């Protein structure tokens, strides 16, 4: 009897643990809540930012597509512009240990200083839990959550899926467009797009 109860509890625990992964975030639906430590050791909870726009940016500084937007200063500019307008910008690093883009909190903080980065916080997700919860596939990949907690954008940063910095000037920035429209109370005209970039370096994947 005792053994049966234990097995039952193990099954229940397994089910509970897999539940959040069963269904990834989807545009138009409630953005799943999370609680993940940032590079300053603070727990960042989505629900703490209710009432504000939240941007999630998947990042991997070794990825040439991420580098396109950081080496040009484009990403830092977006971070600065939008946080100044009250947006909470959370950069997420889901690279597993020993994989490209994996960093410790200290390494990330010193790099942020060096590149003049301006996100609200950088979330460390080496187990890929948050990445899988939002089904992030590439770096970069952008999500926008509105003040009511609904996911209103999921996709690419812009419409030029290349590593060429020269393309930034001629690109339509989907993230800014989504934020502008949503802030003006309009529906987001491009609520999803195919994200482009390197695959997120989750644990257990070989590329």
């Amino acid at each position: 009897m005792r053994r049966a109860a234990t097995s039952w509890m193990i099954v229940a625990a397994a089910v509970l643990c897999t539940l959040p992964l069963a269904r990834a975030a989807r545009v138009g639906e409630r953005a799943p809540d999370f609680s993940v430590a940032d590079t300053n050791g603070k727990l960042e909870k989505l629900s703490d930012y209710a009432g504000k726009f939240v941007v999630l940016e998947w990042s991997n500084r070794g990825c040439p597509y991420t580098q396109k937007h950081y080496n040009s200063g484009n990403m830092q500019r977006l971070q600065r512009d939008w946080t100044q307008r009250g947006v909470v910008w959370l950069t997420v690093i889901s690279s597993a240990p020993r994989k490209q883009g994996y960093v410790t909190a200290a390494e990330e903080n010193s790099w942020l200083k060096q590149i003049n980065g301006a996100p609200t916080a950088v979330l460390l997700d080496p187990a890929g839990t948050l990445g899988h919860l939002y089904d992030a596939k590439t770096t970069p990949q952008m999500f926008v959550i509105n003040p009511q907690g609904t996911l209103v954008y999921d996709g690419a940063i812009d419409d030029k899926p290349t590593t060429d910095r020269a393309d930034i000037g001629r690109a339509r920035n989907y993230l800014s467009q989504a934020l502008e429209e949503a802030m003006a109370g309009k529906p987001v005209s491009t609520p999803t797009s195919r994200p482009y970039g390197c695959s997120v370096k989750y644990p257990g994947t070989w590329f």
Partner: protein
Amino acid sequence: MFAFSRRFALPLTILLLGLAFATTAAAQSFTVTHAKVSLIAENNSLQAGQTAWVGVLFDLEKGWHIYWVNPGDSGERPKIQWQLPAGFQAKEIRWPTPVRLGAGTVIDYGYEGRVLLPVPIQVAADYKAAKPVMLSADIRYLICREVCIPAKAQASLSIPSTNASNAAANHELFRGTFDNSPKAWPGGWKAQVSDNGGFLLLSLDTGTPEPHATFFPLEEDQIDNSAVQGVTPTPRGMQIKLKKSDQLLKPIGTLKGVVVLGQGRAFEFSAPVEGKK
């Protein structure tokens, strides 16, 4: 262990220093691209006004891959910019059958090993075989293993070439590539696609039960690339169940792609989607 260390310390140090130096030298000289890229022609001669097959041949280092026309969840297709003599015109790449790459929730479509991307080239109407012509191309491609590297290559080819043995081998490479490329949908076969909400159901009638199939979508973002494709053989073909992409907001009018039923049995697929959208 200690004795071993003492005995080998000096040679080991020299070896390590040498390795460190070699690594630095390689990194400084140019980007290591993990691929050999060249231009080859199917035939060692050209006919005025006709189509000639010319291709970009990638010899990829083990473990590295490049991408199909639809790269899947990540990656980018190779791009070719041609420099051709006046009156010559390059058309679209005829993409060979890709393979599924990756694991987990990120699935890409591409190529490993040796891959030829054939391109039909329209030869100028006033072409005269008197002297060799030079065809050149700038090739930009993303090459990935665990990491991705954007790479560039410059390749050129003179036709006719003086190397006759190469010419025969190249001809074989084109034959092999065409054998492994999607063929037109056979006339007697039927295909239907119905939309049941979350899934697309492809019903194929090939006249015989088909146990295996893989579908490669031509358009990005129509199906969930990482979802398992459910294959059910039927007396006259099969059914393939494809999960629709979460990023899909507009209904799919026509589903286009490549259906692979086995080695050398890849077919171009295109069918209107019926049922609720």
